[in-house]
């Protein structure tokens, strides 16, 4: 067993080393408590619902979420709107469908099975409307940025006046958390921008946290199921390992040697 601990600690050092390498580029991001971190991490339901509100009212005019469907809003582990609510949300969007029997395209109210409606017809249209910059699709955005949720959360609050001597072109803004500090998205959030129906005060900080939580769920819709299964799987493995350890001891006790 002693030998085994030695081996195990070696593995640990090795893993730690690789973690260090991967986390080499570190920036000090703004900190907040994420309810979905940790072994039992779960999403804060009301934060997800508020985050969806911020997304629809603010972000969705430029940013698509092409991998999400309206049905996802009612699914377990997500914002968990009631099915009626999700249907109502879907119906509030106009969806292009077709061709019909006459060969024409037509619009109809959205259904649960529809994907989130895209703000632009295509990438070129999005670029044309945004000074050449393409507002990235937000479905997996949190996983596509090195700093993850902390980065998005900080970026939304990182708008400042540029330092003296820095020239910014038209349509370029200064953000202290952006790579290279220049961002083509203007500051979007201001206190009281949205009206939360649950009475939460819509500060910039609160909205940033809510919408980032929503984006985390969008990128990892099965995060809660993963954490729950992970805990069970690891507990199961530990118990099995202990049982196998004692069986091993018993079997090896037949011969005089140490395992």
């Amino acid at each position, binding site marked *: 067993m002693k030998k*085994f601990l030695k081996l195990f600690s070696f593995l640990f050092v090795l*893993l730690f080393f690789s973690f260090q390498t991967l986390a080499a580029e570190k920036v000090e991001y703004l900190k907040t408590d994420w309810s979905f971190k940790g072994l039992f991490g779960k999403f804060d339901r009301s934060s997800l619902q508020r985050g969806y509100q911020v997304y629809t009212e603010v972000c969705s005019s430029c940013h698509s979420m092409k991998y999400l469907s309206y049905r996802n809003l009612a699914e377990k582990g997500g914002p968990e709107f009631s099915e009626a609510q999700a249907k109502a949300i879907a119906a509030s969007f106009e969806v292009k469908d077709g061709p019909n029997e006459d060969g024409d395209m037509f619009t109809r109210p959205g259904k649960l099975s529809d994907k989130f409606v895209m703000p632009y017809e295509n990438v070129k249209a999005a670029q044309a409307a945004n000074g050449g910059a393409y507002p990235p699709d937000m479905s997996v955005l949190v996983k*596509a940025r090195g700093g*993850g949720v902390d980065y998005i959360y900080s970026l939304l609050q990182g708008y400042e006046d540029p330092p003296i001597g820095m020239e910014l072109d038209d349509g370029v803004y200064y953000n202290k958390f952006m790579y290279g500090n220049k961002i083509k998205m203007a500051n979007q959030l201001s206190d009281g921008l949205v009206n939360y129906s649950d009475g939460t005060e819509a500060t910039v900080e609160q909205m940033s946290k809510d919408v980032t939580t929503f984006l985390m769920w969008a990128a990892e819709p099965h995060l809660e199921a993963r954490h729950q299964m992970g805990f069970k*799987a690891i507990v199961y493995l530990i118990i099995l390992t202990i049982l*196998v350890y004692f069986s091993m001891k018993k079997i090896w006790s037949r011969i*005089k040697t140490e395992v």
Partner: protein
Amino acid sequence: MSDHNYQPQSKFGKWFNDRLPLLTLANHLTDYPTPKNLNYWWTFGGILTFCLITQIVTGLVLAMHYIAHADMAFDSVEHIMRDVNYGWLIRYIHANGASMFFLAVYIHIFRSLFYGSYKSPREIIWIIGIIIYLLMMAAAFMGYVLPWGQMSFWGATVITNLFSAIPLVGEGIVTWLWGGYSVDNPTLTRFFTLHYLIPFLILGLVVLHIWALHVPGNNNPVGIDIKKPSKDTVPFHPYIVIKDGFALLMFMIVFAFFVFYTPNILGHADNYIEADPLVTPAHIVPEWYLLPFYAILRSVPDKLLGVVAMLSAILILAALPWLDTSKIRSAVFRPLYKQFYWILVADVLILGYVGAMPAEGLYLLIARIATAYYFLHFLVILPVLGFKERTLPIPLSITEPILGGSPNLAAAKIEKGLDKLK
């Protein structure tokens, strides 16, 4: 191959076994005499078999849902993550499984280096192992391309471009590999095909690897030839089976932790951005398990020589049984080699670290020194050491240092041996 005199009990068993001796094989595998002093470093062979099977099974399921097309690959991966039942679990096991596979194979290789398992009469086992390792790297690289993210695309571009370093025909070869004039849909479909093929080649080689192992039998921490079966051995089943099982379970706990709690930490965030041939990522880095070789590649200023250095760094391992001139296998009895061994381990870790860093300034200097040392170790230190090193006396059998409180006895003997050397 201890005894072939096995006879099945039942009449049908006998009839069948006379025509296809599967039962003899099963009997050989369970009775296979194994040195009783194998430590936990020897459990990684079994762990690697588990890794291979896990990758094949999860890979099969993923292939049912994945679409190998440049316009649809990224979407189909997200489809697996969101809408396929437990697709997220299967994909995270497969993606982290690759890292776990390499973690295990590096431990397996370095175990072999420490205990001299590559030496006569086990050269063929070792060389088959190197071929498996090469195929693993090919499979892992092509697998990383399949999600068609930014790192997939640009990683594929960088690595395939290495072939352009070949004089005269280089450019032509690259075009042939790509199936066009850039990494595109034809590249993706052929990578998918090969990614599906290679694991089965590995499986075949693993059978040969184990077959070749079962001819001379396992090496062991003492590194001496043992009589089989004897007091020094135990039958594979149940002794080694349960011990490998225990180690495998410990390994699975680490594996599960990655899959369930930090599934993306070993990957690169850029690979969640769909491939875009017009946007180059700020840093193109391979997966962690290829970093030491990436460092060697970049430490040479000339492209062709860089590629040659990188390939030699792997292929030099195949010549190891002849480069290491020492008759003694285990580093336990080679005081000097033991030190050089740990320097090599540190050297490879340093190479891995600088491989992840930008190739400039101090990092580049360190990479160059570490690369030079890597080759120095195999080409100069090992051959010379075999002639110059004063090894410690080795015990006559495993039982001697193990049984009856004799670890102390063995230590005393070793000390006595040291005294004689003075």
